[in-house]
C-alpha cells in the first residue's frame, strides 16, 4: 500500500444548513502515486472544492460530519489532532491554491513581504535568507526579482496567480492541491500557467490534485482522472483511457458535451440537472438523467473495479 503517496478511502464531509445536511463529499475514494497528478472534474456544485478542503482540512464551522481515511505516506491524517496537522502537514507537506485565489493576496503588502512572512513565522528563517528564497521562487516561475517590491495591483492576473503558486511551493511540499487555478484567466495566460505547472511537476516530482470543471484543460496535467457527480466520484480511471473511452454513463455524456477544436464531433448535452445534495436519491444519483437506467439503479451502485485500481460506480458493470 505504501507505494501510494495519497490514498483516500470512504471520505465523508457534510455541511449543516437550515434546510438540512448538504452531502458535499459522500463516500469518496481514490489514490495518487507519488509524482503523479489526479484531475478532479465535474460540474459546478458537485463537491470538488469541498473534497479539496476535506483533504487539507480547511473546513468551515458548519461541517456536521467529517470522517473516513486519508493516508498520506501511509499515515492516516484523520487521526492527527489539529495541532500536529498544522505543524507537520498543512502548508508544509500539503499545500493548496484555493479557487479564486487571485484576490487573496493582501493588497497593501509588497509581494516580497507576503512571500517571506510564512517563512519567518513557521520556518523561523532569517529575513535575508527568506528574501533570497523568495527571489529564487519568483525566478523559477518566470518573474524577475524586481517584482519583489511591487504591490499586487501592479501585477496582471496571470502574474498574481504565478506568485501564488510560487508562494505555495516555498516550503517544499510533497502534494499540491490546485482548485481551478486558471479559471478567470485568458487562454494564453492559462497556457503559460499550465506550462509552469508541468515543469513543477517534472522538476520537483510533486504530486498534484488538479481541480477543474474544464475537461479539455484537465488533460493538460492529469495522469489519473476522478469524475465527480453530486458529491461522489462516479469514475476513477487512467488518463490514457478516460478521454477516449469513458465508462460511466455520466463521464460519457460529459465528454460528449465538450467541444473540440481539431476534430469534428457531434455535441450533445445532458437534459435536466443534478440532484440537490440536501436529499439526493437513494440509488444512483445519475439515474434520473441516465439513458441506461434500469430497475437496479434505484439502489446505490457499488464501486465496480475494472482492474485492480480503477473503478466505476455503476450497475452496468456489475456482473451477476
Amino acid at each position, binding site marked *: 500500500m505504501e507505494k501510494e503517496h495519497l490514498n483516500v478511502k470512504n471520505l465523508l464531509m457534510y455541511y449543516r444548513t437550515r434546510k438540512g445536511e448538504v452531502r458535499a463529499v459522500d463516500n469518496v475514494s481514490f489514490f495518487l502515486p507519488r509524482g503523479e497528478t489526479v484531475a478532479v472534474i465535474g460540474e459546478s456544485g458537485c463537491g470538488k472544492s469541498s473534497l479539496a478542503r476535506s483533504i487539507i482540512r480547511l473546513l468551515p464551522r458548519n461541517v456536521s460530519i467529517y470522517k473516513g481515511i486519508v493516508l498520506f505516506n501511509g499515515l492516516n491524517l484523520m487521526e492527527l489532532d489539529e495541532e500536529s496537522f498544522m505543524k507537520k502537514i498543512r502548508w508544509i507537506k500539503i499545500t493548496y491554491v484555493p479557487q479564486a485565489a487571485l484576490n487573496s493576496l493582501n493588497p497593501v503588502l509588497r509581494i516580497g513581504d507576503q512571500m517571506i512572512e510564512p517563512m519567518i513565522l513557521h520556518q523561523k528563517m532569517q529575513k535575508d535568507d527568506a528574501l533570497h528564497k523568495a527571489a529564487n521562487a519568483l525566478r523559477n516561475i518566470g518573474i524577475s526579482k524586481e517584482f519583489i517590491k511591487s504591490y499586487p495591483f501592479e501585477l496582471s492576473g496571470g502574474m498574481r496567480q504565478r506568485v501564488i503558486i510560487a508562494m505555495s511551493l516555498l516550503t517544499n511540499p510533497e502534494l499540491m492541491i490546485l482548485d481551478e487555478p486558471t479559471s478567470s484567466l485568458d487562454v494564453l495566460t*492559462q497556457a503559460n500557467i499550465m506550462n509552469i505547472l508541468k515543469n513543477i511537476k517534472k522538476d520537483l516530482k510533486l504530486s498534484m490534485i488538479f481541480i477543474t470543471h474544464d475537461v*479539455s484543460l484537465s488533460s493538460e496535467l492529469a495522469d489519473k482522472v476522478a469524475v465527480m457527480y453530486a458529491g461522489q466520484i462516479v469514475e476513477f480511471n487512467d488518463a490514457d483511457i478516460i478521454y477516449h473511452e469513458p465508462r460511466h454513463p455520466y463521464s460519457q455524456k*460529459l465528454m460528449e458535451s*465538450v467541444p473540440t*477544436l481539431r476534430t469534428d464531433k457531434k455535441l450533445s448535452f445532458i437534459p435536466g440537472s443534478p440532484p440537490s445534495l440536501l436529499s439526493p436519491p437513494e440509488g444512483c444519483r445519475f439515474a434520473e438523467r441516465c439513458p441506461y437506467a434500469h430497475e437496479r439503479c434505484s439502489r446505490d451502485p457499488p464501486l465496480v473495479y475494472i482492474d485492480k485500481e480503477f473503478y466505476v460506480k455503476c450497475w452496468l458493470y456489475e456482473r451477476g
Partner: protein
Amino acid sequence: MSTPLLRTERLKKYFEVKRGFIRRSKGYVRAVDGVSLTLNRGEAISIVGESGCGKTTLGKTILRLYEPIGGKIIFNNKDITYLRWKDLKWYRRETGLIQQDPFGALPSFMTTKGILQEPLIINGVKDKKERMEKIYRSLEQVRLTPIEDFIGKYPHMLSGGQQQRLVIARSIILEPKLIIADEPVSMLDASVRVEILKLLQNLQRDYKLSIIYITHDLSTTRYFSEMIYIMYAGHIVEGASTKEILKSPMHPYTKALLNVIPDPDPSNRLKVREVPAGEPPNLLSPPSGCRFNPRCINIIKGVCDSKEPPMFEVDKDHYVKCWLYDHT
C-alpha cells in the same frame, strides 16, 4: 446577392479617461478602433478575443448603447450611426442583447412573467391577451416548459441554465432580426453550454435570426457560426469562414491562440505549449504599428513596429491585418 443585414465600416469607440482633481483628460481608451465587419441575414458570426480586447464595447456600439466616435453602422441599408435617440426606437425593437454576466442580468424581484412583460409594455403592446401570447410563445421557443412551472418563478428559483434561457426569451420577445450574444454561456457548465448554444442555433435557423456571438472561447465557435472574426487590442486582426480559420490560420496571434487551446487528449500532459511572451497592450497607449508587434515572433523590424497594417484579402473572404501578407 441580397444586401447584408448589418455592416460596420471602420467603426470606432474610445472612452475618455479623466484623472485628478480638475478631471483633466488623461487620454482615450481605444477600445474599438476601426472595425469593419459584415453580417448576412440569418447568419451567425463569432467575435473571438481575450479579456479587454473590446468585444463588449463593439457589441454595445453596434447596438448604439454606446455612441460611436467614428465610422459607420449600416443596418438594413440604413445608416444609423448618428441617428438621434428618438429616431432609434425601431432599431431597439429589431435588435436584442444577451448581456455578459447572466447572474446580474435578471431583476431578482420580478417573476418570469414580469420580466418578459416589461419590454412589451415599454414598446407599447397594450393588449393584455397579445402580451400573454407573446410571453407563452417566447417561453416555448426557449423551452422553459411546462410553462406553468416557470411563469411564476423568481430568478433565484431557476438553475443557471434556466436563467440563461429566460434571458434569451426576453431578448427575442420583440422578434428582433439581430441578436448580439455577449458570452452567453461562459458562466455555465459544459453540458448546459451546449444546450444553450443549440437553442440559439435553432432560433437562428427557425426564425432567420442573425446572431453575433461574442466569446473568448474559440472551441465553441466551430459548432456555432459560419464566420469568425479574431479581435486583438481593439482591432479585428483576422476574419474568415470558421473552417478556414481553424484549418489555416494566418495571423500570428490567431496561430498562437489555436496552438494553446487543448482538446481532451491524454498526450497533452507531455507537451509544453508555445506561448507568446508578454500581455495585451494598454489601450490608452497601444504600441504603434501592429498592436501585436511587441509579442510577435514573426515581426518585420522597421515595418511592423511603425506602420499599422491594413486588412489584406489573402484568399476569397479571408482577411488578415498583418504585414506578412503584403504581396503588393
